[in-house]
């Protein structure tokens, strides 16, 4: 047992996972823009280039489509690339290789190849970076069979899920909320994995299930703690993986609490909340519902620059508290 619980930031946890993966397997290497001497736009790769050299920590030109494609090609032919998009928004430039190639190559070739590529996407709003550097596009990729899409919400999971992603034979897309990078938490030393495709109950409760993703897990936990004083007992499910989604954990939780609130940062409509709501509505948990399902998501707008508008665009703790209270008290 650790005498002192070791804490790392979310960014450090990812960096440690990449170092462990490179130590364990010669085939693992990193590619991306400014991940070398600059250390990555969010300092996630940090000084890894000093330890592993420029052959394994490769700065690409500003060429997302080509870079993503090179990673796919290397993965198909025996390497284990971890490709960093500098911002998740630039997935839009790499989409061809992600969606048409990485996701489908194994299928189209009748199982003759695997595509063990890992792609990392710093995502989300809250940094004042405006409409082209703040998006949450995970549901776009979640819509594509052949991809696995994960959103770790804690430093512990960021490390364990990245190591699971590297070991996975299929393409894994990791969305990392930029505001989580500085968050600290317990991170065990050495190699461990956190399974892809398994949700985690972060807090048990009887009155309401909140299914949340990424940074919204932390906000939901804050809201749950605040409502404890009002005698409202909330269960918080951290979805962790959006494809393949863990239906059973959600269904079991809703059967227990009879109420469901989905909270996520991406634009509300046609997103993760729709999927979670629908899978509950289609399941035996539907009969257990005591209230309509509620979704809290981003406003139907690009992310604005003005800080107050930016905050108003995505769910805040106070919004979650209000929605949860209304649901439990039967206002809805």
């Amino acid at each position: 047992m650790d005498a002192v619980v070791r804490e790392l930031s979310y960014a450090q946890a990812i960096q440690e996972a990449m170092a462990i993966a490179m130590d364990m397997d010669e085939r693992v290497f990193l590619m991306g823009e400014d991940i070398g001497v600059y250390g990555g736009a969010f300092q996630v790769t940090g000084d890894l280039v000093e330890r592993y050299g420029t052959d394994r920590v490769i700065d690409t030109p500003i060429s997302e489509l080509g870079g993503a494609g090179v990673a796919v090609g290397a993965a198909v032919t025996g390497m284990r690339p971890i490709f960093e998009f500098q911002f998740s928004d630039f997935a839009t430039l790499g989409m061809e290789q992600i969606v048409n190639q990485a996701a489908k190559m194994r299928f189209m070739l009748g199982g003759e190849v695997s595509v063990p590529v890992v792609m990392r996407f710093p995502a989300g709003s809250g940094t004042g970076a405006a409409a082209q550097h703040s998006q949450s596009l995970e549901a776009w990729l979640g819509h594509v069979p052949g991809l696995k899409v994960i959103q770790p919400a804690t430093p512990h999971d960021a490390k364990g899920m990245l190591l699971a992603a590297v070991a996975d034979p299929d393409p894994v897309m990791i969305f990392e909320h930029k505001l989580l990078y500085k968050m600290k938490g317990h991170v065990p030393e050495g190699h461990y994995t956190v399974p892809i495709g398994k949700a985690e109950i972060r807090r048990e409760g009887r009155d309401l299930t909140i299914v949340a993703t990424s940074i919204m897990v932390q906000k939901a936990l804050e809201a749950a703690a605040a409502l404890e004083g009002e005698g409202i007992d909330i269960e918080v499910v951290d979805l962790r993986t959006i494809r393949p989604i863990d239906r059973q954990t959600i269904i079991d939780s809703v059967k227990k609490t009879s109420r469901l609130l989905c909270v996520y940062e991406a634009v509300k409509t046609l997103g993760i909340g729709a999927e979670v709501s629908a899978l509950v509505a289609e399941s035996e948990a539907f009969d257990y519902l005591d209230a309509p399902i509620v979704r809290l998501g981003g406003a139907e707008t690009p992310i604005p620059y003005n800080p107050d508008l930016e905050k108003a665009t995505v769910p805040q703790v106070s919004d979650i508290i209000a929605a949860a209270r209304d649901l439990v008290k039967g206002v809805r």
Partner: protein
Amino acid sequence: MAGASKAVVDSRANLPFVYRQYSPEQLRQVLHKMYLIRRFEEGAEECYMRGLIHGTMHLSIGQEASAMGICMPLAEDDQITSTHRGHGHCIAKGAEVSRMFAEFFGKTTGYCKGRGGSMHIADVAKGNLGANGIVAGGIPIAVGAALSSKRMKTGKVVVSFFGDGANNEGAFHEALNMAAIWKLPVIFVCENNGYGMSTSTARSTAVKNIAERAAAYSMPGVVVNGNIFSEVAEASFKAVERARAGEGPTLIESKTYRYRGHSKSDRNRYRTKEEIEDWMANRDPITLFETELRDFGFIDDRGIEAIRDAVAKEIADGIEFAKASPAPEIATLENYVYTEHA
């Protein structure tokens, strides 16, 4: 023309391009605007440091001659697309610093009504179709604007500014090719400041001069010293003439340098302090131009002082205007997502 002026004109015969092409008053205006760009950047930086502005910003200090030189031969209704490092382009194309500051402060009086911030600064009325958060994002848009100009016979010329980093995006290559096959009135201006964020062009780009890319698309490719106003303006002048004559696009590579880090989070670990100091001490675009103006007798010390004072006041007034302006109402959050119908 009076005798004195004639003497000036005669004595100008051997001077570099801009001194023959433009009036002393126009050239003093250029110096004014170069100072305006620099002081604007410094003012924005200071507001940022003091926590008055949030987000991030990319400063163009050191690149003023490039922005001014390229815009010099442009008419008011000619158009530009700009980049994340776009404050200088915006001012060079005619924007007011007060409304730019207001944008950075997220106010409704800003050019983008507080929605865009530094990275999306624009001034559509003055022909600036916008900075861009996506590297190379503006290049095909400029080609589209040039297509409009040709189809609608407006006579407009379009300039697309971009950095050296952008020359490795597919959008750059696709756009240059289309501009060439359709002979569009567009000028591609690569402001090569040596680095795309931390990556030097030597590490990112297969050709030595980005202007060499022009050969692949059968257009002229020109390299200029981007810190010498006259050189930049001359290349731009020729490219504008060519575009207006219907002869098609030009690629200008303007070699320059950014003094500040890429953005606020830059530790400058990819270049040396000596390199930065060398550029600042020996190739500063404002110093070079100011010295020429003085040496050629176009301005004296008092004239320079007057410009500096006027610029300082413009910047101070601009910041005050921005502070005093109203912030957008939360209720307007979803405005401008779609076109409002009457």
